């Protein structure tokens, strides 16, 4: 009797320990992610803070849903302070001291280039939501770094293709006679996009009359404006952060620079509210090449469930930034690219490759095969087999669009299949820059 009571007691005790232990082990299943963006410094206001908001919204969403395949997401947010050296230090700190399983984020290409090499050498997985410079991945053979985002070369090529296709109809000239000027901030981001501009213009036999870089922190761009006036371009292709973009527009207006069209390429051009607040209606009819703003896509073209997620991201955006007048593409971009990881890559790593270590995440990422319409941004995601291209880890089927700003509204101008506006070119008489 005493023995059976003892056994019963032991059984109850063991069950109690088991009950206590099982939730504890469930709690132990956590993926620790270092999230790095710029929350201070010039890049924060230039779009990085909005990108950070998009990524956080998705992380919070999955945690509210109970995590991913039993794993809670523990995000440790770090501020790169708009400085590459701080970005490297924070990445190393998160990996070595905070023992994160992987890194996610990164707005600035100037940070991405050194950080990706460092993280790869430490054999940690890195999921880039934003920075676009081709130099991050080109000819580097990185094993653990993946970027679902469109790369800068594609940005640069698309704007020139857009001009080539529309030169005759809109400007009444042969594409070869259109005078193009390329101006860009001289970091990896601006240089990468400008090289896409230049390469495509050369391939299509178009005339580049000026190609010049400048420091994004420059306090005076008047010499650049004077040179543009001398070169007399029809179209200006501009890649910049901010406040260099608004400085350029102000000095261009004050010094009487005229052109027929201006196409920006992401970053500062993606923060619509700030452009309009700083420059007023002068922003009207400016183009911007970027992944499409997720709020502009027709929900019917997306996989079921994604439209609801787009709405959710939009609502959280407005709660976090109640003064928003026009939703920036930046938030949706990071949300979409982060969502690809949590909805597709991470579940496969856990279920098929048994965990969240760098090898499992890498194998899962390499098997990503999302068709067009399968992401919030509309484009598909597929990474090339290692060694088959010169950009391992780069999404091969991503594509940007050309958008045009008209009275604070964002319209899709190109490609034709997605058009919500017939592109307005050349600039109408109402613009102070009209040639």
């Amino acid at each position: 009797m005493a023995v059976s009571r003892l056994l019963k007691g032991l059984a109850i005790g063991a069950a109690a320990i088991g009950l206590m232990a099982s939730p504890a082990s469930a709690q132990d299943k956590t993926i620790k992610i270092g999230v790095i963006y710029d929350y201070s410094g010039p890049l924060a206001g230039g779009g990085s803070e909005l990108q950070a908001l998009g990524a956080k919204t998705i992380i919070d969403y999955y945690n509210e849903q109970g995590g991913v395949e039993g794993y809670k997401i523990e995000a440790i947010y770090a501020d790169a302070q708009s400085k590459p050296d701080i970005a490297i230090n924070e990445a190393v700190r998160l990996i070595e001291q905070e023992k994160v399983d992987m890194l996610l984020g990164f707005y600035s290409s100037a940070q991405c280039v050194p950080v990706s090499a460092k993280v790869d050498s430490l054999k940690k997985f890195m999921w880039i939501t934003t920075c676009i410079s081709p130099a991050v991945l080109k000819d580097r053979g990185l094993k653990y770094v993946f970027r679902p985002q469109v790369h800068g070369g594609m940005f640069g090529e698309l704007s020139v293709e857009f001009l080539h296709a529309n030169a005759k109809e809109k400007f009444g000239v042969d594409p070869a006679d259109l005078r193009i000027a390329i101006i860009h901030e001289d970091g990896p981001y601006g240089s990468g996009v400008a090289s896409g501009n230049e390469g495509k213009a050369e391939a299509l036999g178009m005339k580049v009359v000026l190609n010049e870089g400048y420091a994004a922190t420059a306090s005076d761009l008047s010499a650049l404006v004077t040179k543009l006036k001398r070169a007399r371009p029809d179209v200006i292709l501009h890649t910049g952060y901010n406040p260099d973009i608004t400085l350029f527009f102000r000095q261009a207006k004050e010094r009487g620079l005229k052109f027929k069209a201006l196409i920006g390429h992401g970053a500062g051009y993606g923060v619509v509210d700030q452009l309009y607040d700083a420059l007023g209606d002068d922003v009207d009819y400016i183009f911007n090449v970027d992944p499409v703003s997720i709020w502009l896509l027709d929900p019917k073209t997306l996989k079921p469930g994604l439209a609801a997620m787009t709405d959710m991201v939009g609502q959280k955006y407005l709660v976090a930034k109640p003064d928003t007048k026009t939703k920036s593409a930046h938030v949706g971009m990071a949300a979409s690219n982060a969502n690809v990881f949590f909805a597709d890559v991470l579940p496969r790593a856990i279920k098929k490759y048994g965990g969240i270590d760098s090898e499992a995440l890498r194998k899962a990422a390499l098997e990503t095969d999302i068709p067009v319409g399968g992401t919030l941004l509309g484009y598909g995601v597929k990474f090339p087999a290692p060694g088959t291209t010169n950009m391992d880890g780069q999404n091969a089927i991503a594509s940007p669009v050309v958008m045009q700003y008209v009275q604070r509204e964002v319209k899709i101008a190109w490609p034709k299949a997605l058009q919500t506006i017939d592109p307005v070119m050349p600039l109408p008489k109402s613009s102070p820059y009209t040639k």
Partner: protein
Amino acid sequence: MMEIINEYVFSVFFVETLLNGLLYGGVLALLSLGLNLIFGVIDVVWICYAELVMLGMYTIYFMHVRYGIPLIPSSVICVLMVALLGYVLHRIIIAHVLGKAPINQLLATGGVLFFLQSIATLMFGVEFLSLGVSLGSFQLTEDIYLSKSQFVAFIVAAAAVAGMYFFLSRSYMGAAIRAISQDREIMILMGVDANRLYGITSAIGGGLAGLAACLLALQFDVHPFVGISFGPIVFMVCVMGGLGNLVGGFIAAFVFAELIAIGGYFADLEWGTVLAFCVFVITMFIRPEGLFARKS
């Protein structure tokens, strides 16, 4: 060769470049004025000077855009506010490091720089804020335009240098400030309240930062890190002109700005800055005390 010279030098665009340099020089001159005054009198370099300008830009933004106060009264409030900040900065920080090793003074004002950047980030956020005011430009010929806001900055800078010159040379307070800048110990022995003079000088220096802020706000967006674009270059202008020499700093600002403009016109934009810094380094070799330094 002659074709290139004709195309680049005998061109309206070169004339515009020279004018651009002149106007940008006005901006740098205005910024260097207060920093030079403070160094000349108190012998402490305010590394955080550009951050005072940043706070001034926020002041005028909030006064004009958020509270709807017209631009001129907003500018007056801005100048007074930054003058007060300059005085407070002196009383709280600078007064305690006077006479200490220069490195300690640099570290103290450097600390203030990071403090002000961080506090501005916390208080105002990271967004770029714009005054939304454009003064437009003068069109001199078909191709040559002059920015009105930069022209105003140029005129104000020239007037401020002239005003400071007359204040220092003709007024009783100016004479006192000059006297203490020449010999700190003797003046105290003669019963002069040095702290009061230093406080007044700091307030004037702050007021000049506020004046610069009013004019910069017409040309640039304000954000917590706007000082990065100006701080280092203004400091170099002051050193090149001879730290503490108001007229030297004024002339050096135009030399610096013209070098940047001309270099940027003939080569890529960044070469202009390279040229200016090369001249700066050579100047430091030849005259380490600056081009127009006072004789000690």
